């Protein structure tokens, strides 16, 4: 029997080549750095093979306590954020909360705030010399300290509840109304309906959202760095360890990096294990009805939602306000001025240019790669492309600082010397933020009929051309709704930038960080405002262009 090899070969060639090229790129820029960091963690300072780093980690209290701290604050903050966001999501999606679009916009905006702006603002308000603290002291009330354990939890809770809110309200809004009606029809009271039908059905979404929040908190470097003070968590330890080891081989920093990746992986696997056993497919026939409240009931529900949203956006409001204050050294004076803005344009203008140039290059690469990778993993399922998909998603669990160290340790020598270049920043952005674009692109691909492509091929257009004439065009809305998320998180990216930047490649978020450290709070605030406004405009522009389509997390 003759195998039909020629025909098969021609049809798959284009995609095989694409898949091969992507695989090589990912191997060099993602897999190889991860292997390097794993390898370094197994060396001692003399370069000999040893397990002593791991032994140190698990026996020295200095390290184990940081691990414990990380898990403790992240778990507690995730639970708090869930407790805040789920009821609010329920209220806002099932009741006629006033100005609902504005509410959602505020929550989206508070989610995309620049990193550690939260911590920084809370310090401005409730820190040792914070506005609220001093005010309360005058009337004789002493606030508990905001630094350390409690402060990290507060900031994490406020920072990550918007993310859970968006996931959960999305799920609540797309639930089939007839399920709840069936429960009502069978005689269930309202509260029991929520507990027996609504809540179990959105549980997978909640657990996925909690996972995302936990991961983000675990990887967050800025917040505990600023507000944690003596309370050390893993990312801070990694950063300090790396700085203290520069010149050396950074073996302990590598070890810590490997451990934090393993922790994140463990949590991810646990969550997958739980969710995969309880995943429901629902056919959405009718969206759930919105209950119309009147009078004070409506007012109360609206007030609760806006209060929470206000707390979420408070850090950004604080930053916005202080950016217009006159400063004298590190202190704000009670007088308005645009000095901070003038000074960033004269001194820090290049960091603004850097942010936009690097992010633009990165997003172009992400859109192209996202389009192709999503297509390969959805339409051309095979072993290689499955590996490709997993590899691309893997950076979800790699904290930015860890990726930064991995890239530095790998590309600081020939043949690939990238340390200190702008390219290494772009590389880190692409690796870290690509998952958003890929996920959203894959999601829309599942909604596009594969027969569309067959129709085009059948009409005489080659498979490669067909992709660009049909599927690629139809994928655009999905690609962009993911890319907008990639874009916003890229311009705000700090944790990898702070490892990789040099004075010639500093970005806005790096400058915010260094300005805060130097005590230049005014310029830091002004820079942060630029980031916030750009993010807000990006979201607005996207919602406008996409006709009200929401961004994909």
């Amino acid at each position, binding site marked *: 029997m003759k195998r039909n090899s020629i025909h098969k070969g021609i049809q798959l060639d284009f995609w095989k080549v694409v898949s091969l090229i992507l695989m090589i790129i990912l191997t060099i820029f993602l897999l190889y750095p991860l292997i390097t960091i794993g390898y370094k963690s197994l060396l001692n300072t003399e370069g000999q093979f040893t397990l002593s780093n791991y032994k140190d980690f698990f026996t020295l209290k200095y390290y184990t306590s940081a691990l414990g701290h990380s898990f403790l604050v992240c778990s507690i903050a995730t639970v708090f954020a869930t407790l805040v966001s789920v009821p609010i999501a329920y209220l806002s999606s099932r009741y006629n909360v006033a100005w609902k679009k504005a509410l959602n916009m505020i929550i989206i905006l508070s989610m995309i705030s620049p990193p550690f702006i939260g911590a920084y603002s809370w310090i401005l308000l409730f820190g040792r010399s914070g506005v609220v603290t001093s005010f309360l002291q005058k009337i004789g009330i002493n606030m508990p300290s905001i630094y350390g354990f409690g402060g990290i939890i507060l900031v994490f809770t406020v920072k990550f509840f918007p993310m859970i809110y968006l996931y959960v309200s999305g799920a609540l809004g797309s639930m089939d109304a007839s399920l709840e009606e069936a429960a009502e029809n069978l005689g269930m009271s309202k509260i029991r309906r929520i507990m027996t039908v609504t809540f179990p059905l959105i549980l997978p979404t909640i657990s996925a959202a909690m996972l995302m929040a936990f991961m983000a908190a675990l990887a967050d470097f800025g917040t505990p760095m600023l507000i944690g003070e003596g309370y050390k968590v893993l990312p801070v330890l990694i950063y300090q360890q790396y700085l203290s080891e520069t010149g050396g081989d950074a073996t302990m920093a590598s070890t810590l990096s490997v451990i934090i990746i393993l922790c994140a992986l463990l949590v991810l696997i646990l969550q997958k294990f739980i969710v995969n056993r309880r995943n429901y497919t629902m056919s959405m026939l009718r969206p759930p009805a919105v209950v119309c409240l009147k009078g004070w009931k409506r007012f109360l529900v609206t007030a609760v939602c806006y209060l929470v949203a206000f707390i979420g956006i408070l850090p950004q409001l604080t930053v916005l306000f202080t950016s217009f204050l006159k400063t004298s050294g590190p202190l704000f004076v009670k007088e308005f001025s645009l000095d901070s803005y003038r000074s960033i344009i004269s001194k820090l203008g290049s960091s603004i240019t850097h942010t936009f140039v690097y992010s633009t290059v990165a997003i172009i690469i992400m859109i192209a790669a996202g389009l192709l990778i999503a297509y390969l993993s959805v339409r051309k399922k095979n072993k290689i492309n499955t590996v490709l998909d997993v590899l691309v998603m893997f950076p979800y669990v790699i904290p930015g600082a860890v990726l930064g160290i991995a890239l530095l340790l790998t590309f600081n020598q020939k043949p690939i010397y990238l340390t200190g270049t702008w390219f290494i920043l772009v590389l880190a952005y692409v690796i870290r933020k690509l998952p958003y674009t890929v996920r959203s692109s894959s999601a829309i691909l599942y909604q596009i*009929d594969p027969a569309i492509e067959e129709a085009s091929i059948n009409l005489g257009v080659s498979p490669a051309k067909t992709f660009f004439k049909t599927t690629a065009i139809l994928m655009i809305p999905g690609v962009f709704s993911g890319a907008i998320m990639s874009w916003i998180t890229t311009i705000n990216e700090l944790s990898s930038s702070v490892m990789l930047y040099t004075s010639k490649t500093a970005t806005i978020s790096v400058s915010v960080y260094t300005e805060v450290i130097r005590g230049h709070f005014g310029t830091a605030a002004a820079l942060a405002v630029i980031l916030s406004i750009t993010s807000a405009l990006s979201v607005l522009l996207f919602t406008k262009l996409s006709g009200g389509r929401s961004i994909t997390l």
Partner: protein
Amino acid sequence: MSRDVHIVDAVKTYGDFNAVDHVDIDIQAGELFTLLGPSGCGKTTLLRMIAGFNSIEGGTISFGENVINNIPAHKRNIGMVFQNYAIFPHMSVYDNVAYGLKARKLKKAEIEERVTEALAMVQIENLRDRQPANMSGGQQQRVALARAIVIHPDILLMDEPLSNLDAKLRVQMRTTIKKVQKKLGITTIYVTHDQEEALAISDRIAVMKSGRIQQIGKPKEIYTRPSNEFVANFIGISNILQGEIKENNEGNARISLMNDVNIHMKLKEKEEEKPVKVSVRPEEFRMDDSTKPGIHGKIILKTFLGDYISYEIELTNGQSVEVNQYLKETAREYDAGDTVSLNPMENKINIYDLSGEEALVDEKKQYS
């Protein structure tokens, strides 16, 4: 230009399962040929092998003299209508239909002319500039048909093209398809699981099951002389009754039906005395009062269906059979609860061996 199609010993394997299992079919130029069978029988797999979307793992498929096994899908010059139409949602009707012509790099004026002609043929000239999003299923189906025929394909393939339409529209589109096909004289391979649709539209039908051809023939042949029990049951309804060949005298056989009634038929001469299956369609029974000879039964359910009445009858041995009585030829109407006597029409019914695989009737002599 229309072409004849030859499928020789075609095989498609998934793992160790043969989705298409050594299939041979010859299709004449200009014929509307249907692959009919239940889902999973391999009909769509075979169609996609012809289109080039499934590889051909054994045997050959040729258009005229040309073996197409190794020609990539986009160079086969085949028109195809997909089950869910696969209209390009980002293009107007005109651009959809012109798509294949642009791929062939025709001149603009010629594209214009051919698209207009194709749209006219499927009666949707007025939809020319519409976007597909706000078009009905029937309209999309017409666009899909126009898009497939406008490239003047050697072969036209249709994959369950009517399955997403409602019943009335389905009959209407069926007529349109058949008219367009005859007018263009284009060799067409049509896939469906709907036996009524297949009988209505086809010049010839291949009935498939488990990747194998069960029977190839004209609609009437397949209906009146199914080659095995599966085909008899899949095309229309057949009541299978137990019987036994009592004598076979050079093809003149006497069969005892349920040890009750003797019937006389022309069987193949070699058949000897043995138990057989007797296949009787609902309209192949004569129904009389229970005083007359025949197999006896009691009417359980009577269903009025317009031009005929369908009775469900429980025979004395407990078996249920379906019997149709056409209004215009009805001597007497019966009611539920009545007992009746049934006699099969000997010139129409079919006899199979006990496995149900082999037809025993001598076709040349039997059917009138």
